[in-house]
């Protein structure tokens, strides 16, 4: 009894899943429409592409095999149902014989048996799954729009239905604007069209909207879903990742209407294009959106292979509508993709340099035009400043300070026959032979008086800009190992003078100026890497030295490092000023200021450079570093099977020529976009259609395989596919073709007949009516309230969200509610953290960016209403709209507000309930001013001059009601 019930049950299911079942079509059984679904669900698990599960070496997915003699007979004998063993096995009463075997839990229903029998009787004409045959343009007029309308009308007529009348002009403008740009029009734009709603004007409106910069932003969001875009890396730690330059690139490409085939090449393999530009390399960040795991103790190879698999799966799903993921572990049971073939594609994607490293390498620096300009400016200023500084440092006479006196030696000695000469202003130049080590001995009788400090300036001779301060041209550094100072009194014996402290303008790391008087000849003062600019050091004496008439001062500059690291040009001065004054003046006046300015600019440059976004991109490993690809047994990366060659699935062969070294990512792009690929054009046309109609011609946008839904309008789908491909894969062209159609422009009103005959609107007797996407809901709130910032691009922003949602266990990343412009940017710029996505968006079904999201399933829960009632953005939008309403003449306020939100003419009568609400609530607020103030504070609404707060507060409540209407949230 139960068995019988089950049979009936399945019949009903089959009748329903094929909206247009064979019963209502012509008598001819169609293999792909009628037979294949039965074979694939009932038989392929054991007699299909998966060799591991195959029974009796029989494949019913291959015509040749099914019509071949097997041990138990020929499964399918054309025109001879009774001689076909497939049928006799299915019909068998013997539990050992019957197919499918009872233990599979599968049964072929009575209805299905009839179909199979009829099909064999008609000759068992074979074919492929409909989606695996190349699309052919149906025989319809050349004009795509006309053809589209014709095909829809034909199907409607078959069911005794017709298109709905054209929707009114206002509604059409709102629909078109939301569909193409994700933003509503202004009432003025709609009114302008409504005043002159001709076909020409409609077409011009389409073109104008397609040219809006907001067009690219809106359609980029669809791509971002597909690309699993996010601003963090995912998994447990979920640290930040710089992906936004890719998002900006994407918006730009869409606004330039880049053809899909070119985009595909760049997204998958931009780095491999000849002389790849920065933009083309940036494009490949597309597949670096895969998650990576920074958690300690995880196996990087595990997450690298997961990322590569994700790239294979996402690529097949986005372009070809194939669910390949199951072939990671075993051959696909329903579609022609074996596990080996899966890993053949995997092998192609397996050769990129990224490896789940914490730094996400390889990274591409994207300075951006503005930043690049600022860097260049800064570099120029730094150059100018540097030469000015050098000039200042070398400027000896004119800027010489009064309190320093040049120490002009009366006796000079250098070792190794080096020659020393005194020049202008006490500058001493060393020339001639240059021994490895050298001690300079200098003696002079200073003017009588006091000496508190002594200064050494290492200089660069004029006119030798590229030279350094040392004598070794290969390493023009010096090392002052020890400075010895002696006083030789006119009477008495020489004694040495101790240095108390010293200060240099610059010291080499580990070679401080203090080492020049530490008594250790192995240490000293040196100036690398700044040896190509002048330097100076001041040595403050332990005790001020009193010089009497005839006292001699003897200095020894011991330079014992070797390698001729000795000074080539220097000057020594002495002073009687205090230590503080002495130390201030290492160089001439102006140098200190200039040096400080230089340091500041250099710091700016450094910061600017470190702020350059560095985006993860694809980079191919060098041939010799290529990884060997082996099949992962049961999908387990630790259980490698046979080696696998890079290649394409047999069912979808590549027709273009592949380089000698085997196929690469560029070949994947060409393979996907080839005219011979039966799926790509259909999948994309269906995807775009679904965005405009609310659902695809194939409702399972993610699955065009044998388990996917059958198309409601196969010919229409093929028309769209072929047009899209032949129009050079232009998104704008496809949108133009659809939006110009009668089908698109018809009314969305549901009649009783619709509800009865076609509740799901599969036949398109009316326009789609659906709740706006998460982003459009928020963007529209901002737009109609006047808060929206149209600023494009840049790092993600953090509009207000409920406090405390971000848990930053691992790093200092914080959610700080943005102020100003960034509070009101379009939603695609909202920071998307994979583990904590923006709740107001996810509540309306936006994704988390963890995996490729082919379509969003629209849900409807009280939580959405909570967002609309209480989200900070919604409340501020009500506040801003209320302010704008109050700025209107009193009698127009409510009408203006309604028109602003709903984009339709509003009569005074329609605002009556709002007026009642306004009056009631205002009275209340008058009695409770603190309550009004609280609401206004929350809504950030500001009371204008001479305006009662109660009035504005009441208007905020009214505006909130306007913005919560279903009509506002719905595209219709």
């Amino acid at each position: 009894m139960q068995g019988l019930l089950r049979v009936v049950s399945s019949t009903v299911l089959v009748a329903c899943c094929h909206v247009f079942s064979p019963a209502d079509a012509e008598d001819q059984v169609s293999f792909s429409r009628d037979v294949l679904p039965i074979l694939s669900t009932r038989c392929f698990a054991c007699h299909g592409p998966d060799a591991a599960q195959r029974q009796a070496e029989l494949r019913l997915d291959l015509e040749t095999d099914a019509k071949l003699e097997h041990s138990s007979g020929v499964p399918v004998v054309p025109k001879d149902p009774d001689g076909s063993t497939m049928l006799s096995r299915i019909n068998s009463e013997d539990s050992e014989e019957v197919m499918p075997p009872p233990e599979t839990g599968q049964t072929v229903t009575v209805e299905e048996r009839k179909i199979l029998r009829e099909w064999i009787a008609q000759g068992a004409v074979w074919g492929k799954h409909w989606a695996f045959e190349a699309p052919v343009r149906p025989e319809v007029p050349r004009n795509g729009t006309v053809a589209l309308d014709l095909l829809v009308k034909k199907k409607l007529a078959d069911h005794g239905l017709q298109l709905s009348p054209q929707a009114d002009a206002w509604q059409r403008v709102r629909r078109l604007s939301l569909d193409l740009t994700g933003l509503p029009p202004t009432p003025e734009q709609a009114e302008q069209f409504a005043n002159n709603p001709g076909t020409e004007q409609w077409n011009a409106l389409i073109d104008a909207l397609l040219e809006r910069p907001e067009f690219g932003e809106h359609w980029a969001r669809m791509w971002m879903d597909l690309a699993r875009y996010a601003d963090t890396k995912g998994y447990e730690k979920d640290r930040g990742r710089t992906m936004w330059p890719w998002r900006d690139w994407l918006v730009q490409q869409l606004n330039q209407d880049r053809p899909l085939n070119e985009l595909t090449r760049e997204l998958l393999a931009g780095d491999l294009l000849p002389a790849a530009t920065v933009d083309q390399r940036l494009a490949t960040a597309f597949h670096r959106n895969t998650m990576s795991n920074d958690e300690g103790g995880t196996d990087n190879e595990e997450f690298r292979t997961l990322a590569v698999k994700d790239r294979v799966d996402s690529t097949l799903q986005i372009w070809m509508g194939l669910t390949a993921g199951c072939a990671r572990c075993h051959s696909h049971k329903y579609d022609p993709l074996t596990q080996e073939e899966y890993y053949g594609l995997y092998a192609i994607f397996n050769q990129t340099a990224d490896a789940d490293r914490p730094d996400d390498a390889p990274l591409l620096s994207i300075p951006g035009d503005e930043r690049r300009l600022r860097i260049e400016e800064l570099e120029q200023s730094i150059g100018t400043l540097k030469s000015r500084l050098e000039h200042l440092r070398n400027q000896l006479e004119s800027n010489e300070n009064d309190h320093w006196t040049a120490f002009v030696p009366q006796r000079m000695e250098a070792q190794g026959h080096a020659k020393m000469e005194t020049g202008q202003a006490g500058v001493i130049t060393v020339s001639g032979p240059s021994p490895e080590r050298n001690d300079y001995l200098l003696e002079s009788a200073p003017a009588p008086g006091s000496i508190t400090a002594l200064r050494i300036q290492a200089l660069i001779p004029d006119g030798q800009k590229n030279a350094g301060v040392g004598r070794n041209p290969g390493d023009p550094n010096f090392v002052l190992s020890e400075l010895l100072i002696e006083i030789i009194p006119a009477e008495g014996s020489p004694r040495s003078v101790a240095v108390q402290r010293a200060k240099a303008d610059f010291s080499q790391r580990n070679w401080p100026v203090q080492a020049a008087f530490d008594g250790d000849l192995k240490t000293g003062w040196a100036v690398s890497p700044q040896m190509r600019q002048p330097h100076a050091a001041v040595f403050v004496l332990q005790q001020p030295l009193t010089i009497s008439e005839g006292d001699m001062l003897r200095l020894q500059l011991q330079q014992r490092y070797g390698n001729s690291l000795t000074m080539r040009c220097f000057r020594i001065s002495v002073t009687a000023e205090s230590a503080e004054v002495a130390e201030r003046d290492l160089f001439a006046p102006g140098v200190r200021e200039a040096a400080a300015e230089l340091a500041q600019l250099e710091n700016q440059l450094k910061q600017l450079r470190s702020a350059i976004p560095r985006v993860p991109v694809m980079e191919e490993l060098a041939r010799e570093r290529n990884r060997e690809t082996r099949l992962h047994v049961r999908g387990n990366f630790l259980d490698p099977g046979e080696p696998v060659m890079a290649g394409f699935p047999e069912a979808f062969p590549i027709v273009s020529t592949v380089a000698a070294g085997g196929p690469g990512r560029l070949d994947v792009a060409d393979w996907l976009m080839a005219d011979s690929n039966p799926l790509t054009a259909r999948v994309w046309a269906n995807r775009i259609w679904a965005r405009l109609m609310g659902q695809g011609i194939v409702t399972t946008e993610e699955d065009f395989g044998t388990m996917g839904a059958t198309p409601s309008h196969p010919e229409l789908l093929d028309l769209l596919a072929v047009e899209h491909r032949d129009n050079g894969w232009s998104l704008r062209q496809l949108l133009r073709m659809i939006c110009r159609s009668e089908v698109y422009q018809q009314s969305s009103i549901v009649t009783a007949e619709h509800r009865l005959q076609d509740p799901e609107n599969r036949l398109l007797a009316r326009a789609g009516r659906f709740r706006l996407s998460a982003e459009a809901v928020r963007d529209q709130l901002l737009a109609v309230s006047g808060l929206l910032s149209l600023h494009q691009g840049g790092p993600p922003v953090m509009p207000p969200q409920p406090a405390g949602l971000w848990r930053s266990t691992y790093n200092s990343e914080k959610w700080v509610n943005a102020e100003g412009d960034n509070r009101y940017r379009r939603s695609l710029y909202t920071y998307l953290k994979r583990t904590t996505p923006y709740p107001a968006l996810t509540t309306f079904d936006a994704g988390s960016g963890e995996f490729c999201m082919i379509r969003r399933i629209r849900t409807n829960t009280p939580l959405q209403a909570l967002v609309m009632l209480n989200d900070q953005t919604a409340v501020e939008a009500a506040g801003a709209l209320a302010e704008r309403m109050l700025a209107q003449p009193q009698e127009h306020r409510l009408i203006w507000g309604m028109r602003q939100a709903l984009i339709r003419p509003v009569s005074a009568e329609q605002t009556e309930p709002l007026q009642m609400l306004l009056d009631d609530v205002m009275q209340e607020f008058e009695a409770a001013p603190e309550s009004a103030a609280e609401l206004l504070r929350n809504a950030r609404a500001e009371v204008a001059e001479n305006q009662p707060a109660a009035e504005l507060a009441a208007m905020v409540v009214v505006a909130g009601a306007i913005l919560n209407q279903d009509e506002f949230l719905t595209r219709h």
Partner: protein
Amino acid sequence: MAVWERLVSVLEEDCRDNRLSVSAPFSRRTLLAGLGGGAGSVGMLSALRAENAGHFPGTAKRVIHLFMNGGPFQGDFFDPKPGLTKYAGQRPPSANLRTERKTGGLMPSPFRYRRHGESGLPVSELLPQTAKCIDEICVVRSTWTDNPNHGPALLLMNNGTILPTRPSMGSWVSYGLGTENANLPGYVVLCPGKPVRFSILWTSAFLPGSHQGTYINHSSLSPDKLVPFLRNRDSERERQALQVNLIRRMNERHLQRSGPDTRLEGRLQAMETAFRMQFTATDAFDLSQETRQTRDAYGEGHFANGCLLARRLSERGVRFIQLYYGNGQPWDTHNNHHQASRDLSRAIDQPVAALLTDLRQRGLLDETLVLWGGEFGRTPTSENGSGRDHNHHGFTTWMAGGGIQGGMSWGETDEFGFQALHNRVHVHDLHATILHLLGMDHERLTYRYAGRDFRLTDVAGNVIREILQS
């Protein structure tokens, strides 16, 4: 007071309004729902509780579905199979059943069984706490489903069909019985993450949109984070009531202008539920209101928290509560099964026992049906040496409370626990029984859509009367 007077007049108007014109199914319970749905009626409505609107008096008023997503192995818990040890490593003909992937010889469950309670039913050492409640539980050992793949099996268990998109069981129950508490969604789905197939598992499909499950990720516990937008910016609730009421009236007008639409109707209800949730959800989701003793009884971890939330929600009259064990499909143990099963059991044992005990102590168990199980079971044969594959031929689910006879087992699997043999219970039978306990005839709980009457059990399903309390 002006506002209040207005509210009353609006309410009266609503009663006069011919809301039946909106759509027939929507308005089947309209008068009650219309009153209950009137947003202005916050204060008045607590008195108006929905009566059980089923076909006959049911024993259960609500359901808590503990969903072990991924599929637990039946032989590890309530269905001892000594045959496994005897034939370990072998693959006798009766164990030669086909599942999703290739499996090898029989792999015994290493967990020891002991008899428990007055009933003396065997429970394995993996569930020492749950074992103490065995006299409340009816173990259905002979459950079976149609397909060994996760997607179809999840859909069958949740939506009664392997094809998307049909209304989920929770939606049917909510549709059939209405809500017990207008201040909370009638159907709540808890999961610390996202189960495979996600929202399609709690969709209302063509049923009115208000019966869709409200999904709440309970990985964070503070009520603000569970339901992030509860805080109203206007402190005066009557004022907002007026606003919400007005919105509803405008929405209805829009609906009448544009033609029937279940989704729009659903939003209409959602707005009002949302409005009320502002005042009740914080309380319902706030586990900090529980005593230390209760918190300790449930233990720690997301599943313990989920069980406790489920009890709080059922106390407040939420009709259908689904608690998914975890993100993805944690019970899908294709590798290293024994250890995984041990860990997973540890995470559920104490919370499940605490939930049953707690419901019993509060007098709620008799009217609350607790259902435990996965989308299918696992193979007694080994996959890859240490794992177990999906098994749709036979597996264990159990039920407790709500009129179920405790301390009994129903049905039998073969000597290895592979296939249900005696008193087989198909998922449709399970659904029929659940609806029956709730006072609904699964053959009469229908919805006309696209020219045909739909049911949760399609054209199958038999109530298992033997496991009901007489």
